[in-house]
């Protein structure tokens, strides 16, 4: 496998990614794989934790699992997107649900993009890069 992946960080800056995921293995795996590509990764185990980290650390991008305990991903995203401080942070929804209309639902909640689990890393990285690049141009 020699395919070139998109550059991990725009303009050399180290993008900080927040992963909100309750499944330990998925979180660990995604964290390690992103770190391997040069991203700085923050972790949260549930919706409330995710909100707290997002507010405190202002990450460059959030990967949000939708089925979380206590506060689910949709609600957490809604809260993030309704607060001025966190509104600009791009959110990519991650979900394993395939049966219902999760995609439009996630986008309606304010998510900027959507990925189904199991994550196809190549596509996820491309989406992340697009959103991060967009942010660079849009918000500085």
């Amino acid at each position, binding site marked *: *496998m020699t*395919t070139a992946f998109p550059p991990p960080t725009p303009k050399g800056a180290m993008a900080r990614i927040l992963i909100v995921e309750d*499944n330990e*293995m*998925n979180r660990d*795996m*995604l964290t*390690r*794989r992103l770190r*391997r590509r040069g991203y700085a990764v923050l972790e949260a185990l549930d919706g409330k934790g995710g909100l707290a980290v997002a507010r405190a650390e202002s990450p460059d991008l959030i990967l949000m699992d939708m089925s979380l305990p206590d506060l689910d991903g949709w609600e957490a995203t809604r809260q993030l997107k309704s607060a001025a401080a966190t509104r600009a942070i791009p959110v990519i929804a991650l979900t*394993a*649900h*395939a*049966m*219902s*209309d999760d*995609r*439009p639902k996630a986008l309606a909640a304010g998510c900027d993009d959507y990925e*189904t*689990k*199991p*994550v*196809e*890393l*190549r*596509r996820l990285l491309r989406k992340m890069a697009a959103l991060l690049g967009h942010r660079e141009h849009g918000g500085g």
Partner: protein
Amino acid sequence: MSIRLKLGLSFLVILALFGLNLGIYLWSGGQRNDSIQHLRQAVERQLRVITIEQELRQRETEAGTSQIFLEAGTSGHPVEMVDSLVERVRELGRTIEEFVDSAVDEGERAAAVAIARQYQRLAELWIDLHGRAKVGADPVPPVARPEEEEASVGPYKVLLGELAKLEESEERRVNEATAYFREVADLTEELSSWIFVLSTLVAVLVALLLSTHLTRALRRLEAGARRLGRGELDHRIEVASRDELGELARAFNEMSHQLQASHAKLEEARAAAEQANEAKSVFLANMSHELRTPMNAILGYTEMLLEEAEDSGAEESVPDLNRILAAGRHLLALINDVLDLSKIEAGKMTLFIETFPVREMIDDVAATLAPLVEKNRNRLVIEVDEDVGKLTADETKVRQTLFNLLSNAAKFTADGTVTVRASSYGTGHRRMLFAVSDTGIGMTPEQTARIFNEFTQADSSTTRKYGGTGLGLSISKKFCQMMGGDVTVESEPGKGTTFLVDLPAVVEEPAAPRAVAIATAVPAPEPAPVNRQPTREERRRASAR
């Protein structure tokens, strides 16, 4: 009452009227005959009385002749003449006796008996007179003459008076009989007319009632049957009579009741089946989630290990890790196929339309499939026309379709070429055509005919040799049909296969959002592209360039 009974009774009523008519006719005939008889008898009696009177006057004249002889004292009647005269006097007596005997009632008899008695006395006088007027008889002393004259004239006058009275009464009888006859004739005529009118009225009434009843009942049945036919199973036909039509209506109602019952049962069964299907769908969704979560970890960690192995130069574990990855992806694909099919079957597959670049999507799919293409030492060629930019469709489903077709092509081809081409055609490039061709084993027409059926591969040995669920093509075709397109196949055994994916360049959103767009007076969307098949030329260009 049954229709047969009704008709029978009607017939009987008419028959009875007919019988009544006949009876009246016969009775009036009898009455007429009686009255005619009566009249005739009365006339006959009258005639007899008149005859008797005439005879009496003649006898009186004859007696007068004998009187003249006696008065003249000349020689009288010859003997024969006298006998004859006497005989005639007696004969009238007999005639009167006969009249008495044949008297029709007591009044007549009494009058006749009086006349007979009177005549008897007169007859004795006349016989004596005639006897004395015989030739050679002793001349009658003239002295006696006035007495004798006196003796016969009195009873004669009385008798005439009696006869006149009788005659009068006979005439009265005749008049009475005539009047009676007229009366009878008038009465029977009138009766006959009335019975005729009545019969006609009754017959018309019966006919009207019967036909109205039958027509109404039939109309009700017809209307009921129509409503039943329209599916109004709760409709009941009014049972208005106890006849065959009523029975028919009852049978209809029974039938609709049964239909309703079985309909309800079916509905119940359908609901149960739907519920079961719903349960199945939910189960599959949950199952899919449960299966995907560990798969997520397996694939993720394997990919990670692979990357680490490549980076750290631990090349010896790369092939094994690649196998794990391939097997894991295969398993995931199977899970996804089963899930997709169950979603399509449950009617829960929805479209998520977005606009995406075609080239990138194809490259992405090709990259994912690279290991499979390389495995059979195949070459993958990608050709995308320059004017092919973006496609507005459900990206995941287009991607999955191309993935299915390409992995099939790679699977069934060895040391050959797998080509994927993308082009647009039609006015304003409204259609998008993907052609996935291989130089593989190909298929017979029989095989291509059933290749899109679920759980079907070209033949059963294919499954053992090449693996797969046989769901991929069926799912792909259904996806494309959902988007207003189709997947078709052209193949020749030994030469290769070409699958054509034909899609609208802009797939319409499902109905609801469009309706909103129209309602808010946003400029109307472009007319839907004609859902036409690519022409032969377009297909040739797409697959053979």
